[in-house]
């Protein structure tokens, strides 16, 4: 699996998100869930969106399908998919995109399938919504999809109800459902979070296989950088509604620029290294999206804060020789490389010498 250059595909990006803002009016004030997110996704690329709970990553992903629309939601910015704008698209236009062009796997497979409908019917319903396919052929496709995601005896199980499946099996059904109309983009919104650790790897493996077979681009939303390590081409790190760092897998893992990324990397447990005394964690809590600190949002938790941090740092390329590596941190690059210490060799990234020359 070769790394693809981000956003610079030969035919232009498949998806371009430009300065997307999403806010919700709540009783506690306006919650700015997504605050000026921009990125591009090339065909066949795997982009991981990483961040803590409440960083706005799921809202951002679901907004691309119009699934966050509600009377109290406000949207700004644009998202272009193959030239069509998604943020302000009508419901009818969106329905043609949903599942057929952009499909999604949700976090909790236990509740994401209709409990009173046979799983086959749930897949067929989607196929027939987008293609005029006779029942028998749609059923054949559903069986084939279930086989492809590794459901044993798929021909019998197609008539089962969701409650007859385990969580891992249900997530496979969700994947089959998402792939059933051959979408160009698959959004996986924390697809493994609700599953046993042993099942997580299998589910990721399925997603990767399907991605290789179909060439679909993937937006993998997760809070776990460990999940990302062997599947993503590029990584966008989100914090409090903003992308704070964005780059290739290697850049993020071996030359991370933002102190928040250091913290995330420091929180990965590595089984190949001696165990630390205490589980490492980033001090403090993420800010409430209704009341965020001015300037750099990570400032209150950052050990390297200085005067400059009261201004919002723009997301730009700051590292020489890495034009596709962006971050939002005022610290000079050489200082960062000096300061970042994530217990080298114990957890997270390997020490400084691993940085690409």
């Amino acid at each position, binding site marked *: 699996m070769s790394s693809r250059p981000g956003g610079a595909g030969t035919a232009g990006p498949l998806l371009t998100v430009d300065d997307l803002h999403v806010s919700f009016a709540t009783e506690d004030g306006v919650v700015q869930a997504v605050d000026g997110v921009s990125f591009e996704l090339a065909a066949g690329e795997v982009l991981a969106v990483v961040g803590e709970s409440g960083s706005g990553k799921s809202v951002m992903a679901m907004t691309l399908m119009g699934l966050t629309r509600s009377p109290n939601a406000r949207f700004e910015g644009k998202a272009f998919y193959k030239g069509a704008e998604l943020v302000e698209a009508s419901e009818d236009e969106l329905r043609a995109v949903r599942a057929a062009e952009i499909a999604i796997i949700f976090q909790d497979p236990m509740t*994401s399938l*209709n*409990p*009173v409908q046979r799983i086959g019917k749930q897949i067929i*319903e*989607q196929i027939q919504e987008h293609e005029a396919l006779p029942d028998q052929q749609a059923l054949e496709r559903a069986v084939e999809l279930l086989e492809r995601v590794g459901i044993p005896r798929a021909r019998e199980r197609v008539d089962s109800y969701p409650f007859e499946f385990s969580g891992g099996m249900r997530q496979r059904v969700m994947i089959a459902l998402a792939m059933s109309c051959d979408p160009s983009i698959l959004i996986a919104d924390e697809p493994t979070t609700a599953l046993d650790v042993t099942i997580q790897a299998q589910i990721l493996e399925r997603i990767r296989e399907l991605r290789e077979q179909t060439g679909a681009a993937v937006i993998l939303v997760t809070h776990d950088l460990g999940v990302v390590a062997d599947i993503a081409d590029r990584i966008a790190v989100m914090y409090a509604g903003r992308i704070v760092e964005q780059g290739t897998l290697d850049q993020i893992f071996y030359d991370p620029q933002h102190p928040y990324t250091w913290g995330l990397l420091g929180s990965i447990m590595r089984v190949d290294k001696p165990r630390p005394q205490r589980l490492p964690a980033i001090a403090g809590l993420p800010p409430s999206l209704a009341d965020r600190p001015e300037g750099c949002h990570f400032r209150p938790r950052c050990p390297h804060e200085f005067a400059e941090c009261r201004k919002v740092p723009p997301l730009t390329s700051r590292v020489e020789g890495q034009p596709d590596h962006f971050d939002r941190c005022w610290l000079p690059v050489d200082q960062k490389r000096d300061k970042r210490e994530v217990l080298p060799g114990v957890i997270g990234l390997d020490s400084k010498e691993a940085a690409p020359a």
Partner: protein
Amino acid sequence: MGRFVVRRVVQMLIVMFAVSVLTFLIFNVLPGGDPALRMAGRNPDPSQLKRIRADWGFNDPVYVQYFKTMGQVFSGDLISYSTQQNVWQELKGRIPRTFALAIGATIMWMVFATALGLYTAIKAGKFADRFLTIIALIGISMPVFWIGALMNYYLGFKLGWFPNGGYVPFFDDPWQWFYHLVMPWTALSLLFIGVYSRILRSNVLDTINEDYVRTARAKGLTERRVLINHVLRNSLIPVVTLWGLDFGAVVGGGAILTETVFELQGVGQYAAESIGQLDVPPVLFVTIFGAFFIVLLNTVVDVLYAALDPRVRLS
């Protein structure tokens, strides 16, 4: 399945037995409950009373009287104390009237309550929802004898749009049958539409936030399909239980007020008249009849439940 049926039949027999014993005992201990006194007329002489008591077996112990009466219930020989008519012969002609009322009304209230419940849930908080909520509460608050009387007076008597009560058998004239039942159906349905639409509204509002509804939207389904295939079906499951109880009661002669206001001469009206005369045999018969339908409808609900929700399906 076989065990399920046997269990339900046994349950039905126990309920009917208990209900019949209770009804019989209550009427035996009621003051003024002595049927011989009423049968003997205004100024009975003691010898006449004695003869009636002997003829009808009122001197026997209560349990003997009970079993004798129950025997007559099942052989169809039960005779009313006050009219001396055969209870079964009297009831037979009334059953289709009550069924017509119950079935028509339940179709009406389920259709309107579903539409109203779904609509108000989609429009939750908006003017249409608030307005219809008030209408539903008015519907719940209006007693059927009152709204029925109003309908009879204005729509029937004053405007002459509908016949003032009465019943035409379906096979005599289907249109007249329908025409005569429109007002009773409406009067009986109003309360149920109010209650059911409120319940359905809150069920829909709960269901619409479920993850699988979001999945349905992500599938690119039309909003209509999302609502009907995914939201409504899951929201209707709890309503079915309620429907079984209410429909069972109405079929079993529970719509006493509606039947009386509109002179339908149904089972409920018969029960009302018999209770007024402390006429034990018909009351007993109608009570057992009603209990039968309530237990039967509860069984139907269990079967429906399994069809609607595979998680409770019988193993």
